[in-house]
C-alpha cells in the first residue's frame, strides 16, 4: 500500500513539482494541495493518465479566518483502489475559478451549487442563475459570515418553545394520571 | 326542353360562367357559384320526377339519362351535402388564390356525380365517372402540395379502377351489343360463368377504388387531407359514395342473381371488415386531423361495404343508411377541420388545443358528428351500426361481427382524439386570438349535425327512401310494412324503439344538468385550464401541459405487430420496381445509330427465318 502510494506520489510530483502532499493516512488515501492555476491540469492528468476516473465528491470549505475558500476534489482510481483528495484554495474576496465541467460533466452541478451557496464565480459555466434557492436575495447562505439565526429572526415569525424544559412524559403523566410503563421509562429523559 | 338536360346545362354553364366571372368581380363569382350549385339542385327536386328520362345517341351509342328511386336516394347525399358544402365553401375560400379553378371543379364534381346517378347506360356512367375523377384530382392538387406523390397516386389508382370498369363495359358490350345497364342486368344471368365472374370483379374494382376498399385505399388519406377542406367534405362525404352506389347496383342486380355470388359477398364483406380495422388503427395513429378523418373515412366505408356485400335486406339498409350518415357526419367533420384550419392555420393536434371556448358552435357540430360517428345513441350513427350488427349476426357472420365490433370500439379512440386535440385540453395563449368561424361556415355544419340528431330518432324518414331505392333495383323487401319512423328491428323480431329512449335520455340529462348547475350555484366557479392540480407546481406560460404527443402509445404497443406491415410500402416498392423495369426498357434505345441499324437487320433476319410461320 505504502509503496503504491509513494509510487503514485512520485509520479504526480514528477509532473507537478509544486504540490504539497499530506500522506499521513494509513488507509488508501492521500491528500494533495495545489495552487488554483494548476488544478485543471492535475485533474486532467489524474483522470486521463493515472486512471483516477471517478470523481467521488467535491466540497467547498469556507476558511473565513484565512480569507480563502478551499475546494476539495475527491478522485478515485478503480484500478489502484486509491483515493486522492485534491485541494486548492482561492481568494475569498475574489472567488473566481475557471469551470471544470469539461473534465467530469457532473462537476457542472457542483459548480452551480458552489456558485449559489458560496458565491464562487466559475467562468465559462453555462447554466441559469437560479439553482436550488428560489427568489433568494440575501448573501450566499453557506458563507460563514452569514448569520442564519439573525436572518431567520428577521424574515420569519417566531414562536418560542417551552421555557420549563420539562419532560414530555412527566407532563403527560401529570395531565392524565397515566403511569409510564416500565419499558418506556428507560427511553424517557 | 328536357329538365334532365336543363340541369346539366345549368351546371356546365354555371361552371364556365363562374370560372370567368372571377375576372370581373369576386362577389359576383361567389354568387354565381352558389347559384350554379343551388339552382340545379332546386330544379332537381322540383322539376324532376321519377322515371323522367332523356335519351340521345352519340357515335352510334344510345345514351340514356333518367331518374330512379335509387339515384334519387343518393342525390340526397350529393346535392344536399353539395349545397351545404357550397355555402360553406364561399366563406371558406374567401381570400384564396385561383378561386375560379376551385369553383369550376367543385361544380363539375357535383355535376358529374349527379350525372352518375342519372346515367342509365354504362358509357355516360363512365364519362361522368371520369369527369368526377379528374375534377376531384384537380382539387386534390389544388393547394399545390405533394402534387407528384399524392395527386398522381390518386389519379393512378382512380385510373386503374376506371380502366377496370371500362374493360367490364366493353365486355358487356361485346356480349349484349348494348351499353344500357338494363340490358346488362337482363343478360347477366344467362352469360357464361367466366363473364359472370369477370364483369362484377372488374366493375367492383372500379367502385372499390372510389369507395377506398382495403388494398386499393392507399390514395385516400393523402387525397382527402390534401384537398381544400370545403371540397373534402364533398369528396369524402359524397364522392366516395359513388363507389358505394356502384357497388350496391353490382351486388343487388348482378351478383345476387348467380349462385356463385356467395363467394363475392363473403370476400368483399371480409375485405370491408379488414378495411374498417386497418383504417381505424391508422386513423388512431395520425396526428393531423385531416389524415385522421381520411383514415376514418376509409374505415367507415369499410362498414358500408360490409353491409352492402352481406346483401340481406337489413344489411343493405344498414349499409345505405350508414352511407347517408357518413356523408352527413364526415362532411360536417371535414367542415369543422376546415373552420379550425381557417381560424388557426393548422390542423395538427399537437399544435392546436383548447378551442372549445373560442369556437363553441364548431365544437357543437363536431361533438354531434363525433357521437354519430362513434355510433352512440341517440344520434343517427347508432341506427346504422345497430342494423349492421344485427344483420351480421342474423346472417351468420359471427367472426366478421367481432372484427367490425373491434373496429368500431377502437374508433372511440380516434373520435376522442379528434375532439380532444382541437377543442379540449389546455387553452394555450398562442390561440387566445382565435374567434368563431363566420356564420356562413357555422350554419351548414350545425344544420347537418341537427339532421343527424333527427335521423337518430326518426330513422324511418330515411329508411323509406332507401326501401324505395332498393325496390327500384328489383329488390323485394320483406320489411316494407314493418318500418315505423322510430323503430328499428332485426330479422329475429327484436327491436329498438328509439323515441322513448330519446325522451329518457333528454330527461335524465336535463335533470342532472339542472342538479349540477343549481347545487351550490354561487360557489361554483370557472377556473382556467392553467389552474390544474399539477403537484403544486405553477405552470409557466411557455410550459406545455397539453398531452398530445404519442397519444395512444400503450395501445400501439399492444397492436404493434399489425401496424408493422403497411400496404402503402408494398405499392411504393411495386412502383419503384416498375420504374426500374421501365428504365431497363428505356435502355433499349441506346441512342447509337449502329445499334438501331443492327436492330433493323436483326429484325429482317429473324423475320426471314420465321416469317413463314409468323405470317401464314
Amino acid at each position: 500500500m505504502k509503496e503504491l502510494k509513494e509510487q503514485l506520489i512520485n509520479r504526480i510530483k514528477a509532473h507537478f513539482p509544486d504540490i504539497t502532499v499530506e500522506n499521513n493516512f494509513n488507509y488508501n488515501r492521500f491528500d494533495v494541495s495545489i495552487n488554483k492555476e494548476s488544478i485543471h491540469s492535475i485533474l486532467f492528468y489524474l483522470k486521463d493518465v493515472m486512471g483516477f476516473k471517478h470523481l467521488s465528491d467535491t466540497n467547498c470549505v469556507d476558511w473565513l479566518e484565512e480569507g480563502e475558500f478551499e475546494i476539495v476534489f475527491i478522485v478515485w482510481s478503480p484500478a489502484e483502489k486509491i483515493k486522492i483528495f485534491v485541494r486548492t484554495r482561492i481568494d475569498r474576496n475574489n472567488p473566481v475559478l475557471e469551470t471544470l465541467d469539461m473534465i467530469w460533466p457532473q462537476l457542472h452541478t457542483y459548480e452551480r451549487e458552489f456558485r449559489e451557496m458560496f458565491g464562487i464565480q466559475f467562468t465559462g459555466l453555462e447554466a441559469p442563475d437560479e439553482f436550488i434557492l428560489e427568489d433568494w436575495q440575501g448573501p450566499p447562505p453557506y458563507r460563514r459570515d452569514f448569520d442564519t439565526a439573525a436572518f431567520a429572526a428577521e424574515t420569519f415569525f417566531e414562536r418560542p418553545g417551552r421555557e420549563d424544559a420539562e419532560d414530555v412524559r412527566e407532563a403527560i403523566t401529570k395531565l392524565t394520571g397515566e403511569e409510564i410503563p416500565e419499558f418506556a421509562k428507560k427511553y424517557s429523559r | 326542353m328536357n329538365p334532365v338536360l336543363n340541369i346539366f346545362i345549368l351546371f356546365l354553364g354555371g361552371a364556365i360562367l363562374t370560372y370567368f366571372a372571377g375576372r370581373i368581380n369576386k362577389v359576383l363569382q361567389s354568387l354565381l357559384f352558389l347559384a350554379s350549385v343551388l339552382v340545379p339542385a332546386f330544379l332537381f327536386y322540383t322539376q324532376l320526377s321519377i322515371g323522367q328520362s332523356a335519351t340521345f345517341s352519340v357515335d352510334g351509342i344510345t345514351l340514356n339519362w333518367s331518374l330512379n328511386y335509387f339515384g334519387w336516394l343518393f342525390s340526397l347525399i350529393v346535392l344536399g351535402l353539395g349545397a351545404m358544402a357550397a355555402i360553406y365553401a364561399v366563406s371558406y375560400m374567401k381570400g384564396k388564390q385561383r378561386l375560379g379553378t376551385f369553383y369550376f371543379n367543385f361544380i363539375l364534381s357535383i355535376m358529374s356525380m349527379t350525372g352518375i346517378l342519372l346515367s342509365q347506360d354504362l358509357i355516360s356512367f363512365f364519362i361522368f365517372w371520369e369527369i368526377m375523377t379528374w375534377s376531384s384530382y384537380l382539387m386534390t392538387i389544388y393547394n399545390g402540395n405533394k402534387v407528384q406523390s399524392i395527386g398522381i397516386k390518386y389519379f393512378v389508382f382512380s385510373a386503374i379502377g376506371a380502366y377496370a370498369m371500362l374493360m367490364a363495359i366493353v365486355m358487356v358490350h361485346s356480349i349484349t351489343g348494348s351499353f344500357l345497364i338494363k340490358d346488362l342486368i337482363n343478360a347477366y344471368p344467362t352469360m357464361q360463368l367466366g363473364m359472370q365472374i369477370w364483369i362484377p370483379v372488374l366493375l367492383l374494382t372500379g367502385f372499390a377504388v372510389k369507395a377506398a376498399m382495403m388494398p386499393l385505399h392507399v390514395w385516400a388519406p393523402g387525397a382527402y387531407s390534401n384537398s381544400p377542406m370545403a371540397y373534402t367534405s364533398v369528396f369524402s362525404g359524397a364522392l366516395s359514395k359513388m363507389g358505394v352506389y356502384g357497388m350496391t347496383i353490382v351486388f343487388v342486380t348482378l351478383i345476387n342473381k348467380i349462385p356463385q355470388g356467395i363467394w363475392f359477398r363473403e370476400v368483399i364483406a371480409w375485405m370491408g371488415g379488414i378495411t374498417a380495422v386497418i383504417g381505424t388503427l391508422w386513423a388512431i395513429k395520425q396526428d393531423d386531423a385531416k389524415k385522421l378523418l381520411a383514415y376514418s373515412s376509409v374505415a367507415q366505408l369499410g362498414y358500408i361495404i360490409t353491409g352492402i356485400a352481406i346483401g340481406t335486406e337489413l344489411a343493405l339498409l344498414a349499409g345505405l343508411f350508414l352511407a347517408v350518415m357518413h356523408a352527413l357526419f364526415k362532411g360536417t367533420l371535414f367542415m369543422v377541420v376546415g373552420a379550425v384550419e381557417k381560424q388557426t392555420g393548422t390542423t395538427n393536434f399537437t399544435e392546436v388545443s383548447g378551442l372549445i371556448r373560442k369556437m363553441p358552435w364548431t365544437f357543437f357540430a363536431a361533438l354531434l358528428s363525433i357521437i354519430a360517428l362513434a355510433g352512440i345513441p341517440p344520434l343517427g350513427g347508432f341506427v346504422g351500426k345497430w342494423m349492421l350488427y344485427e344483420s351480421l349476426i342474423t346472417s351468420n357472420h359471427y367472426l366478421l361481427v367481432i372484427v367490425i365490433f373491434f373496429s368500431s370500439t377502437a374508433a372511440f379512440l380516434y373520435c376522442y382524439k379528434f375532439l380532444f386535440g382541437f377543442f379540449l385540453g389546455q387553452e394555450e395563449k398562442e390561440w387566445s386570438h382565435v374567434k368563431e368561424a363566420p356564420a356562413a361556415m357555422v350554419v351548414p355544419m350545425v344544420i347537418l349535425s341537427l339532421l343527424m340528431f333527427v335521423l337518430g330518432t326518426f330513422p324511418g324518414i330515411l329508411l323509406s327512401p332507401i326501401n324505395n331505392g332498393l325496390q327500384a333495383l328489383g329488390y323485394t323487401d320483406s320489411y316494407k310494412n314493418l318500418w315505423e319512423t322510430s323503430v328499428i328491428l332485426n330479422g329475429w323480431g327484436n327491436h329498438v324503439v328509439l323515441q322513448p329512449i330519446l325522451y329518457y335520455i333528454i330527461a335524465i340529462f336535463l335533470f342532472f344538468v339542472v342538479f349540477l348547475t343549481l347545487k351550490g350555484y354561487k360557489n361554483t366557479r370557472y377556473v382556467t385550464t392553467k389552474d390544474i392540480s399539477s403537484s403544486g407546481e405553477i405552470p409557466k406560460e411557455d410550459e406545455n401541459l397539453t398531452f398530445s404527443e404519442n397519444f395512444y402509445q400503450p395501445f400501439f404497443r399492444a397492436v404493434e405487430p399489425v401496424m408493422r406491415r403497411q400496404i402503402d410500402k408494398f405499392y411504393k416498392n411495386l412502383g419503384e420496381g416498375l420504374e426500374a423495369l421501365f428504365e431497363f426498357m428505356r435502355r433499349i434505345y441506346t441512342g447509337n445509330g449502329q445499334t438501331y441499324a443492327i436492330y433493323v437487320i436483326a429484325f429482317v433476319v429473324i423475320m426471314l427465318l420465321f416469317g413463314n410461320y409468323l405470317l401464314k
Partner: protein
Amino acid sequence: MVGSPVLFIAIPLLAAFLIPLLGMIWKESVRIVPGLVLAYLLVLSVSLLQHVLAFGPIIEIIAGWKPPIGINLVFSPFSGFLVTLMLFLGLLVWAYSYRFKRNVEYEPALKYFLMLMMLITGSVGMTLTGDIFNMFVFIEITSISAYGLTSYYKERNSAEASFKYILLGSLASTFLLLAIMIIYSQLGTLNMADIATKMHLMKPGYKVASLIFFITALGIEAEIFPLNGWAPDAYAEAPGPVGAAFAGIVVKAAVYAVIRVIYTLFDLPGAYQFLIVIGIITMVIAETAAIRQEKLKRMLAYSSIGQMGLVLIAFGFGTKEGIYAALFIMFNHAIIKSLLFFSGSYLAYNSTEKNIADVSGMAKHLPLTSLLFALGAFAIIGLPPFAGFWSKLAVLTAAADSSLWLIIALVLAVSVVELVYYLRVVNRVYFFKKEEDMEPQKPTVNAMIVMLILGAIILLVGFYPDSVTGLLHKASSDLMDKSQYIQHVLSAR
C-alpha cells in the same frame, strides 16, 4: 369534279421550286406562299372528299397510261380522309411556324418552308398513289426533306439525329426496293390493284419475303418497334412544329402505306396477328420508355410511337370496327399530338436542353398555353369528355368484339403508364417553382390561334364525336372492301 388529285402533288412541288424564285422578288413571300398553297389544297381536298363520299373514289390516271401499266392516283374516302387531315395539319404547322423563331434570316426560313412543302407533298403522294414504285419515290421525297428538317438547327445533336435517320432511312429505301423488285420480278406489275389481283400467283416464299421487306421498310417510317430508333432523336432535335408534322403527317402516311400493303396487296391472314403482336410490343416498350424520359420532346416522341403501336393493334383486328378505331386514333393522335408539340414547344421555348424540369411553373406565365397543354395531355390519355376517350373506347370495343381480353387489359395498363408521365409534366407546369433561368416566351398570335383551333377540335370531338365518326366509318369501310378498290382502279378510264 372540282379538281384533280394530281394537283395535290403538282401544286406543292411547283410551289416548293418556285419559292426561292419568288423569294428573290419579295422575301416575305417565302413565308406566305406555302400557306396559300396549303390553304388552297385543303379547300380542294375537302371539296373532293365531299364528292368522293357521295360518288365513290376518283382514280386519276397520269399521262394517259391506264392501270395497270400507268401510274395512277387514288382518291378514295380512306386516302382522301388522310390527305385532308394531313393538309389540315400542314396548314396548321405552317401557321404555327410562321414567325416561330424571331429574327430568322431569309435563308433558313426559305429552307424550312421549302422542305416543309416537300414533306407534305411526299406524304400526300404516299397516301394517294396506287403504284408501289411511285410510293417509293414519294417516301424518298418525304425522307429527304425530313432529314433536312431534323438537322435544321445545325447543331451537333441535330446532325447526329439526322444522321441516324439517314442511316435507317437508307436501309428502308433498300428494303423497299428489294420488295418492289421481288414483286416486279414475280408478277411483272407495280400497280397495287393489279398486284392484289395477281397475288395468288406468287410463290409463298417470295410472297412472305416481299411482305417482310415491305414491313421493314415501311415500318422504319411508321415507327414500328425494333425499327424506330431514329424517331426519338429526330423528334427531340427537330424544331417543335416539325415534331408535330412528323407525328401528324409523315407517320400517318407511313402507317397508311403499311396498312395498304397488308390489307390490299397481300392475302396473308397471319399478317394481321403479326400486326397485333408487333403493335403491342411497340406500344408497351415505347410507353414504358417514355416514363423515364427527361426531355419533353423525347417523351412526346415515345408517346407517339406508343400511339402508333395502338393503331397497328387496331388495324390488326382485321375487322371494320378495328379499322374504324385505328382511323379514329390516327385522327385524334394527329390533332392532339400536334397540340402537345405546339404548346410544349412554347413551354420549353428558351430551354436549350428541353428538359421536362424546364417547364416547371410555366402556368403562371403562360396560362393559356399551359391549359392547352394540359388539355392535350388529358385528351391523349383518353379521359372523357375529350377526344381521346372515344377513340380509346372504339379500340377497346373492337378488341372486345374480337374477344381479345388480354389486349384490352394491356392497352389499359399501358394507359395508366401514359397517364403517369403526362401527369408528371402537367403537375410540373402547374405546381412547381419556375426554374430561375427559364424566361417564358409568349406565343405569337398565329400560334395561339392554331393551338386554340386544335383545342376546340379536341373539345368538339369530345363532346360531339359524331362530327367525325361518320366520315371515319365511310373511310374504314373503304379500306375493308378490297375487291371494290381493285375494281375501281382497274376499271378507271
